[in-house]
């Protein structure tokens, strides 16, 4: 006996709707939980002063700075490398065994737990190259960690640029590089930005890879050679060592706002760029 299409249709709507609802509810619950416990602790003093007694008292200014600088450094390193790799794989090579191996490699790299990157960064950057626990070590390690994401999202974005644009550009006597630079990359930018946002998000939320490479100093960083602590690491240490649950949740709440802010800025920049191009 066949089930009537009306029933399957109704069932599908209910199941899909329920899945969406559940997702939204879980997300909202997590954010509400963090904000409820964290927001009352946030004050101007919390945002603008250094921590005292290992974070039990005082603010989180150095960790805010660390949370801004470290992902920026990681993106500054990973973006040119990742987009360059993606352009090379899509526009300068034909699909063959080597490109398949490279792509498989990046996919594997994307699935490796971050603590492995942390250990690698510790052995290679911190000790072997003698960079010590520093923003530089942390930035390089995070860059390697987010590189696969940037490569793959950029590749997808570049592939989705209509072939017709390349043909026209080519028929107007543009070289391969001019086509990439003037036609392909501008049109792929929204997709590339998605990869950048994912990368920044991962970097901001990262703890394991950061503790091993950037350390967890509570001092204000003065140079790339100084150790820093990000808000995620701060939150982890405060909670893990039972230093201060209140300060931990306040840090988490600031972190949530920071991620929100980053996304808003990214959207705003994107819209401005698109509006400017198609004016």
């Amino acid at each position: 006996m066949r089930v009537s299409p009306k029933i399957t249709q109704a069932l599908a709507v209910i199941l899909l709707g329920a899945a969406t609802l559940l997702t939204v509810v879980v997300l909202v619950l997590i954010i509400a939980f963090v904000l409820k416990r964290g927001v009352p602790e946030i004050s101007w003093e919390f945002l603008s002063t250094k921590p005292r007694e290992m974070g039990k008292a005082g603010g989180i200014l150095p960790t805010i700075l660390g949370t801004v600088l470290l992902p920026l450094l990681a993106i500054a390193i990973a973006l040119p490398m990742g987009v360059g790799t993606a352009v090379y794989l899509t526009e300068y090579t034909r699909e063959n065994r080597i490109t398949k191996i490279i792509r498989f490699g990046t996919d594997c790299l994307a699935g490796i737990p971050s603590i492995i990157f942390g250990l690698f960064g510790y052995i290679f950057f911190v000790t072997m190259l003698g960079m010590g626990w520093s923003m530089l070590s942390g930035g390089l390690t995070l860059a390697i960690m987010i590189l696969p994401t940037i490569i793959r999202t950029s590749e997808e974005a570049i592939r989705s640029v209509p072939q017709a644009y390349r043909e026209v550009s080519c028929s107007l006597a543009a070289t391969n590089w001019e086509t990439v630079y003037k036609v392909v990359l501008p049109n792929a930018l929204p997709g590339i930005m998605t990869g950048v946002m994912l990368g920044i998000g991962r970097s901001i939320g990262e703890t394991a890879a950061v503790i091993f490479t950037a350390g967890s100093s509570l001092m204000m960083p003065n140079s790339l050679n100084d150790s820093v602590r990000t808000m995620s690491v701060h939150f982890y240490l405060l909670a893990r060592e039972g230093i201060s649950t209140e300060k931990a949740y306040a840090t988490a709440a600031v972190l949530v706002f920071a991620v929100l802010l980053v996304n808003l800025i990214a959207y705003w920049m994107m819209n401005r760029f698109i509006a400017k191009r198609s004016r």
Partner: protein
Amino acid sequence: MNSLSASKTPNTLRMTVRDLNLFYGNFQALKTVDLPVQANRITALIGPSGCGKSTLLRCLNRMNDLIPGVKVTGEVLLDDQPVYGSGMDVCLLRKRVGMVFQRPNPFPLSVRDNVTFGLRVAGVFRQNQLQEIVERSLRAAWLWDQLKDHLDSPALALPMDQQQRLCVARLLAVEPEVILMDEPCSALDPIATGKIEDLMMELRERYTIVIVTHNMQQAARISDVSGYMLLGDMIEFGPTDSIFTNPADKRTQDYISGRYG
């Protein structure tokens, strides 16, 4: 094959294709094809889908180079210069032999930036020079009067026929010698098609045009010489008048009378 002596006036050859074979992997898409392209004439290539007419067109400015696995033998000349020769600068070739595509494909940029694209690639950045060329190119494509006050509006917002004429203007801006058109009207309605055809007749005075078309009335209306292709062979080539009124080959006759194709 019909000789060219039948054409109205003796004419110079701008491009010559001799014994051209083209393979996509193991598939032979062009079989020992000849094609003389006369200067300041419209040459039409007709034939059913998959007969190789677009492939032949794309050999004239080496657009097939973009496709992996293509092998070409034979000779293509642009004013006695071998197009597939090692001394040929492909960029320069494509500047001299430009192309208009099947679907209007302006870049998602403003009207002005579309027209100046080829120039900016070539390194022209002086504003007054660009402005002058924008006006000249848009005038030549009959768009200036409609668009002179909308140079900064997005090209993708234009109606289809204006988009296609913008693509022509974009091409004219780099001052090509030969214009290849790959079914330039197949995405347009009859009125828009008429406008593009009028434009082609006008451009013929200054440029050499090769057009691929599915539309036989179009070939009959606008072209001076036509070639009928079938399964990679050039079946018949000659003045359009005689091809359409008195085809020498039975297969040509079948096709133009609608019995095949």
